[in-house]
């Protein structure tokens, strides 16, 4: 080891021990903080209404494999799919090197080894080479991502009132961190490589990219050692910081996409949920002998406040819809295919999902960084200072947005991680209609037509069969024999 980092008065084993202890503390602190944040988010999701999503494991497994691991739905759009694939595979493969870094950091210093996985031999060569090439490709892909977001004009789906301020900054922060991590990796490898070359030693592994960069570094063993250590520490510290940034960021999707796809609905997209309490009431009305099941009670036996029909706030939504909100990476595929949004209406499915997450963190727990969206002049409701009472419905999502939905399922179909904005829209419509009687007047007319005439239009029920009057068909000429 170079003398500058090892004062003669300081025993070498102590110096190495110190690095290991420091690393251990960092690791424990980072994972502890992450677990603490995840617990808060888990609690947020569980404020949602109960919904049984158990069973069908084989089908859920298959879906998770295809949609989450296999990124099946990303491939509807080739360019972003390929760019994203590079970053995704890069993330998976480079994490193998992170395992090595952790082993080195914890034990390598004490037991005097370096690059713990080198025993893999040729496999290690392939692994390191793949890593380097992927890391270079990640930088290219991230640059392309940055360009798609920040060029003038940016890609249309990266615009819109919900994608300014914090969400815009957040997206760029993620890209900057990813580039910084990759550069630290190259720093570490290049310095290590040059150090070994200068000593006439052979560094285990193959480093096709770092090989090209060796000339850029100074030829001083001392400096190289510092650079190698610096690269190592920046890379691993960066990863641990990034880990703790995730819960505050849209980048949390790299984790939440998996449970979200697992718990996504398996029924046809056209099938809307059933409200059981209403079923019981209707059954009781039609059949006097029907006994309505008793309302659920609190654990101590006291009566619970009746749950409203539909959703006014986040805790009225099923927990799966809240899980949706934490899985959203704000890519805007949903909004870009929404017929209402395409034709200039206020509705943006992405905004509804983002609002749900903002509202959860406003009302319940928030992660380390919490920046709710500010819509400014584009907000169609009075800016509210009474955050406690600014419910999801009306506080963030306006009836105008909800009534613009054609329930066409384009947003649901387009989401690469199976988020269902339509379900949240319908739950809020239910609240508007059943709790507030606040449907647009024309829809109230339609409701009363159905009630009175059995049809959504004002036709007399006695005319329902008139279409069959004077119905003639042309007598089909005898078939000509085909020769």
């Amino acid at each position, binding site marked *: 080891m170079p003398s500058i980092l090892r004062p003669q008065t300081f025993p070498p084993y102590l110096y190495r021990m110190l690095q290991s202890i420091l690393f251990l503390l960092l690791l424990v602190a980072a994972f502890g903080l992450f677990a603490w944040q995840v617990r808060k988010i888990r609690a947020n999701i569980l404020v949602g209404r109960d919904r049984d999503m158990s069973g069908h494991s084989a089908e859920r497994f298959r879906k998770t494999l295809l949609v989450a691991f296999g990124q099946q739905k990303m491939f509807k759009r080739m360019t972003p799919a390929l760019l994203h694939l590079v970053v995704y595979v890069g993330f998976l493969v480079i994490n193998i090197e992170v395992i090595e870094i952790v082993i080195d950091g914890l034990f390598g210093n004490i037991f005097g080894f370096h690059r713990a996985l080198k025993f893999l031999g040729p496999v290690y060569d392939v692994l390191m080479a793949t890593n380097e090439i992927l890391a270079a490709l990640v930088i290219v892909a991230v640059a392309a991502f940055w360009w798609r977001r920040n060029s003038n004009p940016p890609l249309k789906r990266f615009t819109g009132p919900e994608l300014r301020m914090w969400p815009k900054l957040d997206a760029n922060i993620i890209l900057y961190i990813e580039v910084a991590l990759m550069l630290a990796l190259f720093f570490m490898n290049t310095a290590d490589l040059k150090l070994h070359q200068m000593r006439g030693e052979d560094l285990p592994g193959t480093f096709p990219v770092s090989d090209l960069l060796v000339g850029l570094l100074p030829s001083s063993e001392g400096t190289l050692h510092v650079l190698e250590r610096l690269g190592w520490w920046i890379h691993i510290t960066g990863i641990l910081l990034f880990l703790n940034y995730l819960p505050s960021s849209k980048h949390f999707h790299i984790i939440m996409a998996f449970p979200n796809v697992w718990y996504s609905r398996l029924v046809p997209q056209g*099938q809307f949920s059933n409200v059981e309490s209403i079923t019981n009431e209707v059954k009781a009305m039609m059949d006097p002998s029907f006994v309505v099941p008793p309302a659920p009670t609190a654990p101590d036996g006291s009566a619970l406040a009746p749950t409203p029909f539909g959703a006014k706030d986040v805790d009225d939504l099923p927990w799966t819809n809240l899980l949706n909100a934490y899985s959203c990476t704000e890519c805007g595929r949903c909004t870009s295919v929404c017929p209402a949004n395409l034709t200039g209406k206020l509705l943006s499915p992405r905004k509804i999902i983002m609002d749900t997450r903002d509202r959860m963190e406003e009302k319940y727990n928030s992660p380390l960084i919490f920046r709710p969206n500010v819509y400014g002049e584009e907000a169609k409701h009075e800016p509210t200072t009474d955050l406690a009472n600014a419910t999801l419905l009306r506080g963030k999502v306006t009836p105008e947005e909800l009534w613009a939905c054609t329930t066409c*399922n384009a947003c649901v179909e387009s989401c690469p991680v199976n988020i269902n904005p339509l379900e949240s829209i319908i739950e809020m419509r239910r609240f508007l209609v059943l709790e507030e009687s606040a449907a647009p007047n024309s829809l109230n007319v339609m409701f009363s037509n159905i009630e009175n005439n059995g049809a959504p239009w004002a036709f007399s029920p006695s005319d329902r069969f008139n279409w069959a009057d004077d119905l003639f*068909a042309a007598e089909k000429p005898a078939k000509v024999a085909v020769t």
Partner: protein
Amino acid sequence: MNPEAPAKKQITVPVMADLAARNESPEILFWVGCAGAFDDRYKRVTRAFVRILDHVGTKYAVLGLEESCTGDPAKRAGNEFLFQMQAMQNITTLNGYGIKKIVTACPHCFNTIKNEYPALGGDYEVIHHSTYLQQLINEGKVGVTGGESFKGRRITFHDSCYLGRANNIYEAPREVLAALDADLVEMKRSRANGLCCGAGGAQMWKEPEPGKKDINIERTEEALATLSGKADALANLGGVETETAAPGTHDLQGSIIAVGCPFCMTMMSDGVKNKEQEANVQVFDLAELVASAEGINA
């Protein structure tokens, strides 16, 4: 078209109550739907479909005056109570007659009865008429010959959301159209990427929210651009980030927008009128096209 007007025969549509009184049961129950029963334009589709049922000799029946709205518009608009009232009423009727198999020409009725009635006690085999027509063609019961020829006419199919994305039925309507031997062209936004006509989710009964365009106009523009093949018209369409092939240009005269849903029918017809193309482009339902091609549409 035949030079001599063919003989006509009158069809008396069998009503379920009469069949039940005779202790008979039909092979299929044809669920007409409110649009099919009341909307003047879609009544023609209902009649065309009944001509096909009669022609192939299927033992069918309709509920007639006993049919009531499935509750779909109420449910999509958030009125779950009204939906369930309607559902329970219809299920009582259907179960009372012991109905097993239902065919309907409305994707909204189809989706509601197929997916949302089972939880309320109504379990039936539900088939959309596009699938049913495809089966008739495949079985050779309908030859799609002897009537109007669609050879060489340009047809584009507009996917209904409640048939397509809601229930993954994309191929059946296309196979029906393929039997017409016409010149089928696909819109840029089709199948799972299809663009809504703008009427779903109870929009049919209300004015659209303020915006820069009506959805049916956007969709009609896409259909017309696809049928005419004009590249500049295609380039103006938003929505999907896919490249457009450079198509040849075609005269719109005689082109057809094919639909399989009463609301799409209304929206696309209105769109064609708005674009003043009603002299050139017609909007037809699958059943009408099949009945015309078969030569039974009197």
